[in-house]
C-alpha cells in the first residue's frame, strides 16, 4: 500500500487533480449541450454564460472565504435583494445614479457587517445568524418596496452588464477577472488565506497563536455583504428593474458553486479556482437548460441534486483518505 506519505502534499496533489477533473466536466458539459443543440456552441451563446453568472461569481468569492472557515452565509441572496431595492428607491426618489450606487453598496456592507458583528462577537453560530438575517433583510426589502417594482434606470447604467465588445465579448469579463484575481491572491498567497484555512481546521489553535480571529471573521462577512451589493448592481444592469422577489434562488447557487469547486463545508480546505469553475459549470448548466427549453424548476432541482451528490462524493473521498492513512500504520 504505497499511497502518499505526507498527507498535506498528498492533499495538495489531490486538490489540483480535483479541479482539473472539474474543468473536464465543464468542457464535457459544453460539448454535451452542443451536441443536443448546436446553437449552444455559437460564440454569442457561450459568452452569454459569462453574462448570466456575473452576480453568482461575485458572491461566491467571499463565500469561499466563509465556508473555508467552517461558517456559512445564507443571507447573501436577500442582501442582494435589499441592496437592489435601496438602489431602486434611492434612484427613484433622488434621481441621482451616484447616490443610488453609494446607498446600494453601503446597504450591502451594513448588512454584511451586521452578520459579522453577531458572528464574531456572540456565540450565535453563523448558520442561525444568517438564517435569521436572511428573513430580516427580506422583510426590510419588502417593507421598503411593498409590491412595487423600481424601473427607469439610465441606459448608461445598464451598460455595465449588457455591453459587449465587438458585440460578442461581454464586459463582465473585465471586472469579474479583477475580482477573481484579488480574491485568489488573498486566498492563496497571503497570510489571510492561510489563517482562514487554519480557522476552519481549529479556530482555537489559531486564536492561541495570537491571530485576531474575531477581526477576520467580522471582515469576511462584511465583505460578503459588500460583494452582494456589487452583485446586485450587475444583476440590475441586466434586469433593469428592482423587485423584492429577486435573488431568491441565488443562495443555493452560490453555495453549490463553492462546494462543487472543492471547498469543504467542514472548513479548512478550499479552492478559489474551484469556485470559479464551479460557477462556470452552473452557468453552462443554466444556459444549456434554457436552450433545451427546460424551465427554471428543473434547474433548481438539478442544482440541489448536484450539491448533495457532490457532498456525498466528498465525504466518500474523505473516508478513503482516512482508511488510506490508517493503512499506512
Amino acid at each position, binding site marked *: 500500500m504505497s499511497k502518499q506519505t505526507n498527507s498535506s502534499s498528498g492533499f495538495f496533489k*489531490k486538490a489540483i*487533480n*480535483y479541479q482539473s*477533473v*472539474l474543468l*473536464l*466536466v465543464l468542457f*464535457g*458539459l459544453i460539448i*454535451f449541450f452542443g451536441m*443536443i*443543440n448546436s*446553437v*449552444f456552441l*455559437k460564440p*454569442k*451563446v457561450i459568452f*452569454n454564460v459569462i453574462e*448570466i453568472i456575473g452576480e453568482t461569481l461575485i458572491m461566491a468569492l467571499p463565500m469561499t472565504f466563509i465556508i473555508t472557515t467552517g461558517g456559512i452565509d445564507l443571507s447573501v441572496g436577500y442582501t442582494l435583494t435589499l441592496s437592489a431595492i435601496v438602489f431602486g428607491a434611492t434612484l427613484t426618489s433622488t434621481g441621482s445614479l451616484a447616490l443610488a450606487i453609494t446607498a446600494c453598496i453601503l446597504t450591502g456592507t451594513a448588512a454584511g457587517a451586521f452578520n459579522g458583528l453577531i458572528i464574531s462577537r456572540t456565540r450565535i453560530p453563523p448558520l442561525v445568524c444568517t438564517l435569521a438575517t436572511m428573513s430580516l433583510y427580506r422583510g426590510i426589502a419588502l417593507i421598503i418596496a*411593498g*409590491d*412595487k*417594482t423600481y*424601473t427607469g434606470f439610465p441606459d448608461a447604467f*445598464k451598460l455595465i452588464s*449588457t455591453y459587449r465588445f465587438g458585440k460578442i465579448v461581454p464586459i463582465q469579463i473585465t471586472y469579474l477577472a479583477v475580482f477573481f484575481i484579488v480574491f485568489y491572491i488573498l486566498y492563496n498567497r497571503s497570510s489571510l488565506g492561510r489563517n482562514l484555512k487554519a480557522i476552519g481546521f481549529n479556530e482555537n489553535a489559531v486564536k492561541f497563536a495570537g491571530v485576531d480571529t474575531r477581526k477576520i471573521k467580522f471582515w469576511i462577512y462584511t465583505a460578503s455583504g459588500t460583494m452582494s451589493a456589487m452583485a446586485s448592481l450587475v444583476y440590475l444592469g*441586466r*434586469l*433593469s*428593474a428592482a*423587485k423584492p*422577489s*429577486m435573488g*431568491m434562488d441565488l443562495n443555493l447557487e452560490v453555495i453549490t458553486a463553492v462546494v462543487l469547486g472543492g471547498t469543504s463545508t467542514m472548513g479548512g480546505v478550499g479552492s478559489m479556482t474551484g469556485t470559479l469553475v464551479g460557477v462556470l459549470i452552473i452557468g453552462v*448548466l*443554466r*444556459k444549456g*437548460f*434554457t*436552450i*433545451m*427549453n*427546460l*424551465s*427554471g*424548476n*428543473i434547474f*433548481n*432541482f*438539478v442544482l440541489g*441534486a*448536484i450539491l448533495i*451528490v*457532490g457532498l456525498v*462524493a466528498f465525504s*466518500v*473521498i474523505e473516508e*478513503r483518505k482516512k482508511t488510506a492513512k490508517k493503512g499506512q500504520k
Partner: protein
Amino acid sequence: MKKILSLILAIAMVSSLAACSSTTTATTKAAAAGETTAAAATTGNTGSGTGTEYGPKDAKYKVGVIPKFVAEDYFIACERGFATAADELGIRVTWVGDTMAQCSAQNQKNYIQSFIDQEYDAILVSALDPSSYADTLQEARDAGIKVITWDADVEVDARDFFVNQAEGDMIAIKLLQGLAGDLSSYTKDKPATVALVSTTTDSPNQNAWLAAIQKEYESKKDTEYAHIKLLTDVTYAGNDQGQADTAIKALLSKDKEIVGIIALSSNTVPAVASSREQLNLGEIKIVGVSVPESSRKDMDAGKMSAVVLWQPFDLGYLTLYVASAVLEGKDPSGAAFVSPLSGTNMTASFMDGTTPVLYPAEGHKIMENNVVILGEPIVWNLKNIDRFRGYPNADSGMSEFLK
C-alpha cells in the same frame, strides 16, 4: 477514485437531463400524431418543468410561447388553445414557463433569450413585468423575430402586437354592474361598502382594470351606483393562495362593514370565500375575475353569484392566429382582424344558459397601439359554466367550439 466519483457526478447530471428530455419526446410524439386532446392529456403534467411542444415537427414556423406561469387553471386553458391552433395552422409551438411559486421576470427573460438563440420565428409572451424585457425583446426584433404579447403587455414600442382579452373598461363596467345588481337591496342612505382587491401593485392588467372601475364608479356614483360606497384603498393579495388568504383575512378583520368585494384575480376569489367562513362574517357578495371552475363550489353554495372572465382557450387560439398572420406578412390592420372564431360561439348567455353569444362576424376589434381585442368579457355562472373551454379537461366546453 476521485476521478471515478466526479465521473459519476457528471453522469448523474446527464441522466437527470436525459430523464427530462424523454418527457419532452413523449409529448412531441403524441403531438405529431395529430391528436390534440391526447397531447394535452398525455402530459398529465400540463405545465411540467419541461417545455412542451405542439404542432408538426417540420413546420415552417417555430414559435415560442411564454405564459406568466404554468400549472394554473387559467394558463392551462390558454395552453390548450395554443395547442389546437398549432395543429390547425401547422406551426411548431414551444410552451415553456415556471410554476407560480418559482416564476420570475428574470426567468421569463431567460426563456426569451433562449428563443432568440435558437432562432425562433416569433416569441409570444404574457409578461410578468411590463418593463424589464425591453432590451431583450429589442434584440429579438433586431434579429427579425416577431414579438407579440398576449394577456399581459409590455411597453408599446417593445413589441409588434398585443392580443388583449377584453377592453379594460368593459371588464370594469361588467364587474361593477354585476355587483351593484346583487347589492340592490342597499340604498343611498345606507350604502353598501365595497372593497377592491387586486394581485400586485405592478400588474398592468389589474391596474388598468382598477383605473377603469374607479372611473366608471366616479362617473355614476350619484346615479347608478348611489347605493354603493367604493373604498379607495386597494388591497393587494399577491399571486399565490397563501398570501391571498392572509391579505384578505386582514382586510376583512379591519373593516367589518364590507359587504361587497370586487376581486381582480383568480386567487382572491377562493381566499375571500374561505376568510369569510373562518371569520364567520355575514354575507359578502363577491364578484371577480376568475376561472369559473375554481369558483364552482362557491357558486354551488351560493357564496358567489358570478365571475367575469373570457375564454382563455380562445385567447391562446387567437394569439397564434395573429402570430401566423404577422409571420406571413399580413399584419392585422384596419378596424378588425378576422379569425376562425369570428361569427362563432363565444359562449352561452348567463341568463338562461342556452342563448348563444357570438364573436362579432366582422372580426376582433383592433385598437390603437396595435392591440387586438379578443372580445367582450363574459359573465360566467352555473348556467353557462359548461361552455368554458380548456379547463378542467381538454374537451371541456369544446362541443360548441367554432360553431
